[in-house]
């Protein structure tokens, strides 16, 4: 039987590293997706996700409800993303003072055009819809897990998810018409 997040989190706290690895396997994809909303670049998002898990490990002792590990983790991800954005802002401010001819590090664009299209489309969705789609598709199409991560009731989750699909289809259609 598959262990719950809470069981794994408690085991990790006792020093069971494989339990933390299992938590990583379950949640890393979603965390990368959340980070991609900030970084626009999958590699940077994956790096940021590593930071999220490192931070989560060091703070694991402060997790009050181990069963809410995923929701707690997404909270850390948002915090890490906020810090990353602030860091980028500072970089950009510094770049303004660079001597002529010195280029700031360019924001890397995603090389996979499909992912880039999806990212742009997702960016246009309300946050809850975006997160619902990400959680569902990145949690092994497991609606129960996905809604738990987001803290939504089953009916709300289904409604939000369907709405997200509808909006996404509309965005794709508009993009096709324009092209």
């Amino acid at each position: 039987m598959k262990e719950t997040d809470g069981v794994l989190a408690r085991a990790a706290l006792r020093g069971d590293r494989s339990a933390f690895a299992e938590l990583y396997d379950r949640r890393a994809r979603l965390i990368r997706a959340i980070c991609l909303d900030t970084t626009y670049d999958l590699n940077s998002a994956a790096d940021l996700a590593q930071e999220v898990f490192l931070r989560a490990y060091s703070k694991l002792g402060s997790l009050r409800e181990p069963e809410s590990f995923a929701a707690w983790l997404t909270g850390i991800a948002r915090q890490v993303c906020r810090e990353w954005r602030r860091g980028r802002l500072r970089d950009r401010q510094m770049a303004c003072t660079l001597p002529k001819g010195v280029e700031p590090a360019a924001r890397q664009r995603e090389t996979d055009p499909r992912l880039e299209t999806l990212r742009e489309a997702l960016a246009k969705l309300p946050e809850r819809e975006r997160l619902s789609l990400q959680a569902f598709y990145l949690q092994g199409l497991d609606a129960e897990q996905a809604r738990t991560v987001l803290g939504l009731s089953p009916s709300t989750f289904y409604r939000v998810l369907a709405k997200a699909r509808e909006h996404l289809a509309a965005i794709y259609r508009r993009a096709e018409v324009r092209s």
Partner: protein
Amino acid sequence: MTCPDAKTWDLLSMNLLDKDRAESFRQHSLECERCYTAWQEASRQHTELLDTFQAFDCDHDQRRDQLMAMLPHAAPISKGESNIVLGPKWLGGIAMTLRQQKTRWAAAALLPAACILLMFFLMAGEKIAFADVLQKIRQAKTMTCDFVTTTTVVEGELPEQLTKEPTRGTISMYFDGDTRAVLHDFELLGTKSRFLSLGDKTYVWTGDEVRVLNNSAGVNQNSAGVNQHQATEDWLSRLLDVRESPDRNLGEQSINGRRAVGFEIAGWKLGIGTRPTKGSAASTDSDSLALVWVDIEQDLPIRLEIEQKMVMPNLTATIHNQWDNIKWNVALDPDDFRPPAEEDIAKDAIIQLPAMDEVAFVDGMRAWLESKDKAEAGIDVMKKKAKEKGEELPTQMSTMFERAALDAGYPERLDMSWLMVTFSSRATLGKLGEMLSEMKPIPEDLNEEDRAKLISARAQESALAAAQATTEPSLKAGAVAGFYMKLANEQRDPEYFGATVKPGDAEAILLKWKLDDGRYRVIYGDLRAETVDSAD
């Protein structure tokens, strides 16, 4: 059957409808062309999303392995949360222990290593490997290590017991919630000692005695600790300089059976020693060196080495301090980091740090001059007493002490080590002279045993009194040395001429330094100070 809406087809494509409903809709789609198209479109979009989201696998297995390798070996700590944000307060506390007669040597050696760790705590790393290390240190909650301090005499002589065996001990740090504690345990000359830096206080146990070094916030920023003259922001900017500077990468090496990479950093960049100045240097500790060895798997330091020169009258020594077997995030007992009970601390054992500014410098110099006569008298008494017994003072005393005591001018140098020894030597000699002259002769009718007991008691009493007498002068010495170091580190081009200036000379410059507006501040031989337009 009524045709379902687009949302239903979306949910069906995601397999989110119950079996019966799903089956009925599928049947319907086979009979209704419009619904069949909608169903196909929803399924196509679902498949496309599924494919696209696979990109988030992103070398998942490899990244998981990387992450697991980066995790601390120890289990996470089970309560509280904190980052290490350790101000220079405890460092100042440790610096203060330099002024403790009994523990001065060990403290002097501990201080640079403490500086290195402090650097890490405050440093904000971002993209380079070294910065990753710093980030992890900032997240650490506990640390333990062994330390070994070795003193090597380069020139001159030092009592054998100080150089024969290295000083060994352990260091533990505990950072959780509001607790910021650093504990040093070591044995020096057979006496067990312990420093506990906690908040703005450092508790020092030497044998059964507990002293408190009070480094309260109001005093801290300008007090006389070696490295506490800079505010946190200054530390951060200096650390960023370190990160950008061409510090030598020492490559890979096996440290205690683990693969590690080394970094070499000039000590002064980390606040160990004085920054080289443009003018004539008054201290020689600018060539201190720090080596940091980082475990490749953990990205955390496993060894620190600091080498620092110490200069004293008739003696030059190198202190090599090594923190080894550093372990991070290990389980520690919080009770070990609790301060002693109030009733265990004597009221007169609470010591307040002095300021570190021009006024303190002048005050220190004045105290130095005033201490000469007492020290000289002390030497005379000691020589007289020795002569009465048909003995001579040990060579050690007649060289280092005499030179310190009988120097008629200002201190030759402003090294922290030089000033500590000379200031405290003068105080010790003065106090011992006072005690010896007041001491009654040993009654001749005492038997051997009682005689030995009395001599031993008197020796202990003298040693304690001498140690207490050095406290205040040592604080003043720290303020003088610290002020010069502050000027050098702020690049104010300080120049000191103590070796040639005669006390009372109103024309000769004793110390000068540059001000923000380009003018110079000058202290003359008569200890008068003024601001002048030109450095000449």
